[in-house]
């Protein structure tokens, strides 16, 4: 495989992560939307957990105060002040793409740019926020299109592997957070475990990960145990954490050429360990360990993998000074 510029690899990686992130923010909002629409009373309409899950609650508190549906929705979709809003994600993805337009295909750029322009006009038009589902659906579609176009138009070489690595890591992280949304909701309504409403909630979690139908085929009846097993440990469902991490590991090894099962640098080691942990973990262990705690540790480890990728591939390096032969720099 032809090597690529470190700076370019960095930009391709973040372009891909931000597109995936935007799509997942839309999925968060959708799951919460479904949950609250089905809630038995207005008091159960909780939007604050969503802000907590996306990790920007201080930012939110500063600008909005109360976590009404409208506020949270605006904060997560079109608010440019929130670095993880859908608009900000697309802006960042596009900025990164702009610096690597010669690496990605024209089709990828066109798709990204079109969608950025769409989000920008949505931000300027408050009516778009009144029917959020249509907009969220478009965001999801934009993510799918970008992934499909990337796979169909870009050589599956190093740059493509960086795209895939980034996308899979981001998705693993976000699927774990979607599970966490349910956890936050559960905290508030612990007495509802096992009720019909609980089943509805778990089904909503599955839907937000586009997993409901595939789950049915695998497990049939919706149960908390089944959902956790499917979204965390399934090796065939493309949004399941295990599936994502296996794919991320494959791309990481394709980039470095290290054989699977061995490692040459820290991120390979850590990601390999994470994959085998998940391979040999049982769903009952995860639940008895505490789902939230398990997800928390997983996220910490994923962050470390990300940091390791940065240090290994993107960070600024210089040749060994001993090899420099230029004797006297001219003033």
């Amino acid at each position, binding site marked *: 495989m032809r*090597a690529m510029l470190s700076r370019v690899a960095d930009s391709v990686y973040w372009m891909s992560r931000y597109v995936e992130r935007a799509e997942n923010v839309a999925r968060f909002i959708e799951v919460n939307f479904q949950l609250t629409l089905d809630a038995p009373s207005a008091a159960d309409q909780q939007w604050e957990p969503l802000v907590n899950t996306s990790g920007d609650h201080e930012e939110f508190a500063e600008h909005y105060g109360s976590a009404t549906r409208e506020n949270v929705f605006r904060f997560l979709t079109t608010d440019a002040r929130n670095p993880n809003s859908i608009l900000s994600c697309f802006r960042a993805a596009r900025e990164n793409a*702009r610096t*690597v337009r010669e690496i990605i295909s024209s089709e990828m750029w*066109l798709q990204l740019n079109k969608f950025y322009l769409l989000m920008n006009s949505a931000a300027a038009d408050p009516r778009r926020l009144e029917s959020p589902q249509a907009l969220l659906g478009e965001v999801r579609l934009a993510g799918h299109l970008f992934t499909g176009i990337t796979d169909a138009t870009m050589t599956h070489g190093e740059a493509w592997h960086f795209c895939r690595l980034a996308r899979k890591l981001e998705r693993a992280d976000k699927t774990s957070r979607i599970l966490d949304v349910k956890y936050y909701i559960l905290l508030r309504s612990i007495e509802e475990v096992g009720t019909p409403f609980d089943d509805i909630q778990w089904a909503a979690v599955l839907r937000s990960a586009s997993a409901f139908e595939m789950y049915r085929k695998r497990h049939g009846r919706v149960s908390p145990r089944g959902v956790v097993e499917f979204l965390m440990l399934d090796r065939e469902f493309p949004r399941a954490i295990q599936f994502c991490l296996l794919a991320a590991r494959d791309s990481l090894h394709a980039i470095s050429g290290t054989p699977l099962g061995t490692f040459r640098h820290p991120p390979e080691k850590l990601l390999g360990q994470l994959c085998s942990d998940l391979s040999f973990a049982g769903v009952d262990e995860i639940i008895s360990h505490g789902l939230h705690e398990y997800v928390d540790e997983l996220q910490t480890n994923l962050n470390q993998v990300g940091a390791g990728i940065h240090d290994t591939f993107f960070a*600024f390096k210089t*040749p060994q000074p001993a090899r420099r032969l230029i004797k006297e720099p*001219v003033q």
Partner: protein
Amino acid sequence: MRFDNYEIGEFFDEMFASAARPRATARRLLDTLEALPEDEILNCQRAAERSLLQMGITFNVYGEQAGVEKIFPFDILPRIISATEWSRIEKGLKQRIHALNLFIDDIYHDQKVLRDGVVPREIVYSAKAYREQCIGWNPPRGIWCHITGTDLVRHRDGQIYVLEDNLRCPSGVSYVLENRQVMKSLFPAIFATARIRPVSNYPNKLRDMLEYLAADDMTRPRVVLLSPGIHNSAYFEHSFLAQQMGVELVEGRDLVVDDGSVLMRTTKGFERVDVIYRRIDDDFLDPERFRGDSLLGVPGLMEAYKAGNVALANAPGTGVADDKVIYAYVPRIVKYYLDEEIILPNVPTYVCAVEKDLNYVLEHLDELVVKAANESGGYGMLVGPHSTEEQRVEFAGQVKAQPRNYIAQPTLALSRVPTIVGDKFEGRHVDLRPYILFGKEIFVLPGGLTRVALKKGSLVVNSSQGGGSKDTWVLAETPQMEHDELETNTAAFAAA
């Protein structure tokens, strides 16, 4: 929209010979446009703008809020050039580039042209882009100006003049390619029959030329395009050309000089670079040799270049020949090196460093266009007839303080092309920038960037000053009528 009420005014119109009589070159286009349903032309215009925006064909505007991108305004009515006229332009450009390359080489070697008094020595030595570091240097294949974008204008007399030589980092060719893409999708029927010469081969030609600069024994030289980065106004073009050529787009921070060679930082360590198409001015190329405060360049790059380990296009030092004062001497330069009369004439130019010219300029500021010798992009320029008394006084002061830095030219009545303004056609002034590549041979891209001053009456076509662009059609053969017309024009001009 119809051309019934279109007025050509007192200018040369590229599409109409007189109000009711289209030129033969434009007839096919006009027939097609007239046959379109009402409003369809405006729909086409809007469709063109939409696709340019979606393609992200934008430029950054200096002096405005950071990161502001604008689309370069585009008008769908093309400028059309007959085959006969183009062949003369092409010959003229090849002649000019050939002579300028000899001139630059001479300046950095024997300086015969100075010894023979063709160009004053002090003018060359005081040119901002003259580089002492280049004395005695033989660039790969003996070529200095690999990529040129020469600005041409047509005056009321029908004659094409050279307005400026851009030998440093001429930009705009990406718009030529993208504009054509858009036009082909809007008017496929015309392109199918009109025999318009294609432009899409430019990136191939550019890459061939760049690879030609690498050493002979190199089977697949590594070519890169060096850009100042995303904040540069021409960044879109840099990435577009790199993409279309299939070469890496690099910034200074991606490169490092080690052991006399240029290396780029990759995810697998360092890889050697053989040819650099640099879109950075000389001043910023190498902080060790030129400006020490440059963050854009690569320390040690000039050492590697002079060791013959990397080729640079255009060669450092080339800019000496596009100094606007030296421009005034180009007809003499052509005569001196090639012993030929210049094919494409210069605009008559007053050199303020010459006292007689200076006095004339100061007395006629309200009629002349005064330009700073080393500025581009329409900056540092006074258009006399459109200026205020206050501006003229200020400019007179600057000219008197530094006469070497200024030239002046009569205000030309640039030719016009019909342009969509609101819901009708109005004439707007245009210039033309063809692109010339100097590698194994000299190649002129058929057509070039037609820039149009969109403000009514304005003569300034630069994008930074409210200019837009049009597609430029060079026809593969000249319709007979147009041929006759040209003959008549030329005869009339010769008689006058």
